[in-house]
């Protein structure tokens, strides 16, 4: 044992970095459950008590967890379930059914999935027998036969709850809520959704049967707390085998979070969204720059990663265009300026472009109509311009009305950075009118 410890103390730094990468990647990419939740203690307690009532006392309940994307709804639910299943009594009794609105796109599939997960008697192997109607009747009959004190409680988790509300007649929701409101087998229905107006989607009889318990996950995180969480996400815990390395790493993270430019970057991200998933993306690209040669995250890495995250996608696309395509875009910009956002067609753009060429003595860009047309089509394929109405077949391509899908700031920014942009083109873009 002691020998192994000695070996561990001298773990080569390459191995340390690999370990570090695995631990942090698990945290950032695989949505590893945290040890304890921060900032949502009240919600956690509410949900835990509610599910306990179902699991232990056999009381039927329904609840909706609502919060913006990336606010930790599923994490909350998973943490609650983990706590709940720690109790022996619950572990033996609770049946779980997990449904997702994206997978179970109609009631027929959802019902099969429920039957399969509950392992009812009409399941043989992995297959569910009987028609849709029979399945529904069978499930309802099974639930009806149960009663509060003797049958095992069932937990239904409906992820993407709002999609279930779009099913025909909302049959599944009606039946689940109806069971939860009548003296049948005890069930708890937990819906998870990001829509605040989800109750307006429900039909009135379904809504009447829902118990109107809602758990809102709206984070009121301050920037200091935000910074603290970033630090916690990156820090290594005490159980890291190589203590020396861990200490160094944590000290490095500490100084990183104190750094002024890092704080500025994080503040910018915080201003744009409090959602933690986007920060994970940012930290991931920092983490991938950590190697044996450079076993620490430097402020420069974070700045670079942030630059990548915030880069404007359309402006990047403009960098890859040819000069002709760029000229057409500029002509469109001028048309937009003159005619205040009215749609245009290829002829108008080409005319505008020709006006520019006339003023130039050297006709370096004097392209034929088919070439211009090709460039125009390429722009359409990139969806930098789009037809006003969808019916493309009726009108000839030259006369089809189009709209520009770019903001002027994007065009100007792209022109600044365009590699070796001809000066006259740049001047033409700058000038007020074509």
């Amino acid at each position, binding site marked *: 044992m002691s020998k192994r410890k000695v070996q561990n103390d001298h773990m080569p730094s390459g191995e340390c970095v690999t370990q570090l990468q695995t631990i942090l990647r698990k945290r950032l990419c695989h949505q590893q459950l945290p040890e304890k939740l921060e900032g949502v203690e009240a919600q956690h307690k509410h949900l835990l008590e509610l599910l306990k009532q179902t699991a232990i006392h056999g009381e039927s309940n329904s609840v909706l967890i609502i919060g913006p994307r990336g606010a930790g709804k599923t994490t909350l639910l998973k943490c609650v379930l983990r706590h709940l299943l720690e109790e022996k009594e619950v572990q033996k009794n609770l049946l779980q059914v997990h449904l997702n609105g994206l997978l179970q796109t109609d009631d027929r599939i959802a019902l099969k999935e429920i039957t399969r997960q509950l392992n*009812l008697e009409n399941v043989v192997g992995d297959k569910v027998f009987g028609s849709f109607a029979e399945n529904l009747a069978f499930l309802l*009959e099974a639930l009806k036969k*149960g009663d509060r004190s003797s049958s095992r409680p069932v937990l239904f988790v409906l992820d993407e709850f709002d999609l279930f509300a779009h099913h025909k007649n909302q049959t599944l929701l009606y039946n689940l809520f109806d069971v939860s409101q009548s003296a049948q087998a005890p069930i708890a229905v937990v819906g998870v959704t990001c829509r605040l107006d989800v109750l307006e989607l429900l039909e009135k009889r379904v809504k009447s049967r829902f118990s109107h318990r809602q758990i809102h996950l709206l984070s009121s995180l301050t920037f200091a707390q935000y910074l603290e969480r970033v630090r916690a996400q990156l820090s290594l815990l005490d159980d890291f085998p190589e203590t020396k390395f861990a200490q160094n790493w944590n000290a490095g993270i500490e100084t990183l979070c104190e750094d002024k430019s890092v704080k500025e970057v994080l503040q910018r991200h915080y201003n744009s969204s409090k959602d933690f998933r986007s920060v994970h993306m940012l930290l991931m690209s920092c983490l991938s720059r950590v190697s044996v040669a450079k076993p620490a995250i430097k402020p420069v890495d974070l700045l670079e990663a942030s630059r990548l995250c915030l880069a404007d996608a359309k402006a990047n696309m403009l960098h890859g265009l040819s000069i002709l395509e760029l000229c057409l875009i500029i002509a469109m910009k001028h048309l937009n300026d003159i005619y205040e956002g009215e749609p245009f067609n290829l002829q108008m753009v080409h005319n505008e472009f020709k006006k520019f060429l006339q003023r130039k003595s050297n006709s370096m860009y004097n392209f034929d109509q088919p070439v211009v047309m090709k460039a125009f089509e390429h722009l359409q394929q990139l969806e930098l311009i789009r037809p006003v109405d969808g019916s493309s077949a009726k009108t000839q391509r030259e006369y089809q009305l189009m709209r520009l899908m770019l903001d002027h700031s994007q065009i100007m920014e792209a022109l600044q950075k365009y590699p070796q942009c001809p000066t006259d083109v740049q001047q033409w873009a700058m000038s007020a009118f074509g």
Partner: protein
Amino acid sequence: TPRHATPSIPSRSLPARQPGNVLEEARIRLHVSSVPESLPCREQEFQDIYSFVESKIIDGTGGCMYISGVPGTGKTATVHEVMRCLQHAADVDEIPPFTFIEINGMKMTDPHQAYVQILQKLTGHKATADHAASLLEKRFSNPAPRKESTVLLVDELDLLWTRKQNVMYNLFDWPTRRHARLVVLTIANTMDLPERIMINRVASRLGLTRMSFQPYSFKQLQQIIMSRLNKVKAFEEDALQLVSRKVAALSGDARRCLDICRRATEICEHSAAERSATGLVGMSHVMEALNEMFSSSYITAVKCASVHEQLFLRAVIAEFRRLGLEEATFQQVFVQHQALCRVEGLQPIGVSEGLAVCQRLGACRLLLLEPSRLGVLQRVRLNVSQDDVLYALKAD
């Protein structure tokens, strides 16, 4: 074997825990599922339905009745209670025996499944919808010795609507046959359903025996809770009154009332754990429960949004004011957003980031958006009132 499977949920290893104290007892009594023996405040309706069905059974004739009312006013519960009483009367030989069956439009996948379920409940046979229809037709039109009366309850009638309305037609036509001895009770939400969706020959067969359940008044709601609690002393008088007044003002839905009371009991339970209070559910607990279940969360959502999200909402309002319309394209709003950024001294954001902000607000439905493929041309509308947004932004 699946053909003869008996549906059941596995039973638990330990029976469920019994309630330990007054509050837990109250919670169980307040659960919507624990329907009391006799429903308070529905005596008149009970009497009407009872005498209607009783007379039909005694005469050996058939008939239809249409019952309407908003959800949660005790329609189905009253009919069930009537049936329980009649069943009891039949057991002691006061009236001839009858069979009671029940179908629910929401609990079947297709209107034609009604035939299958009726047949199965009458005879226990399984058949396809067409076959079941012809079997039922035969059963109700031919005379048979020692035929019992049948009472059929059809819940959620509006779901049985088909384009040719043959399911509804059959349901209302069978009782008119001489030998059918069928009483059909139908339940739906809207009062004018027969006039609205049924064609004339269906509506005329349904007849004019109608009954509508009014929403509960606050006194009735109070009485319902009192009768549920039945001497379990868990609530303060004022607290009960507040709940019933609030619910009666909003919808008169008894389910909602009971759910709020249950939540209030829960809140009381948790707060009692911290400091040993009186143990009664008081005004403050009820207020908290009401707030939780009635308040809209839009304002909190706006308050908790990030800086740029809030700024974007302000930009939307500013653009609406400028245009005098309730709709603007993303491009127009973005110009306002950039201006607001400059005013606030924030670093302006790029178009991609602005679109992401806009999408996030759209995902939680603070904004209504067109499909995101339209990019900067997509139109933006507010899903909340401007006043709410301004209030939320001003409060901090």
